């Protein structure tokens, strides 16, 4: 699980162009939206694409993302339970 969390942090920085952010600066429980990493609605859509492309998880309802993308920890937990690749 720790490996997946690190992998997600790297993907987040790469996919969401978080140029000023280091992997070590993202805590497992830090909120990704709002006061945390400050991601926006386009980032949320980008994360939905990432789930499908890299882990084979297709969200039926984009609103599900709100809970899944709460933090790296929550995301990693969800991916490990639902991934198909």
């Amino acid at each position: 699980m720790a490996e997946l969390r690190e992998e997600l942090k790297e993907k987040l920085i790469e996919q969401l162009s978080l140029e000023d952010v280091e992997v070590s600066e993202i805590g497992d429980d830090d909120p990704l939206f709002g006061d945390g990493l400050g991601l926006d609605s386009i980032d949320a859509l980008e994360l939905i694409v990432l789930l499908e492309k890299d882990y084979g998880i297709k969200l039926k309802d984009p609103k599900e993302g709100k809970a899944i993308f709460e933090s790296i920890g929550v995301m990693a937990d969800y991916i490990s339970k639902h991934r198909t690749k």
Partner: protein
Amino acid sequence: MIKEKYYISDFCSIRDKKIFKNGDQLHIDLESDNLKDFAKGVYKFLELKYPKFHKMDELCKLGFLASEVLLKDREKVDRDTALVLSNRSSSLDTDRKHQISIQDREDFYPSPAVFVYTLPNIIMGEISIKNNLKSENAFFVTENFDTDFMSNYSKILMNTGKASNVICGWVDLDNDKYDVFLAFLSKKGEKELTKEELNNLYNQ
């Protein structure tokens, strides 16, 4: 009938890895191999702290950086400062990236972050957000920088009270080839706003 006189208060350009403001070279970077690295270098040079910059496409980055250079020494920018921009290649550079992501039905993963930049007028949105502008804006796609049309359009905006100032210019990018020129038009300045003067400054 256009009676009031308007002026080109400030102007800047970004070309060939160089930035000029009011005719003076402000920055040169011959080390960068591509536009992305050049833009990042300018971001650092200008000491900007604006993480959203890194999410922009290259066309937006160019327009955004030019606006930062143009407005650099102003204490504040009037909220009704209009934006009137133009270019030849529209958002073709990003359109191609989007096209690549959707052309294979077996590998169909269009990126929302790329798609949002498949319109050139997004540049004006980014500049407006950064400077808190609530103003008129228009983006024209023309073969060349049409200084006659652009100066007239800007004058009309100021003459009719739609804007107190106008940022007008040319922000073009295609395949890493770029040409950027912005001018701040207002009632103050030494260079009178005419199509000839705008053309002279663009060609400097």
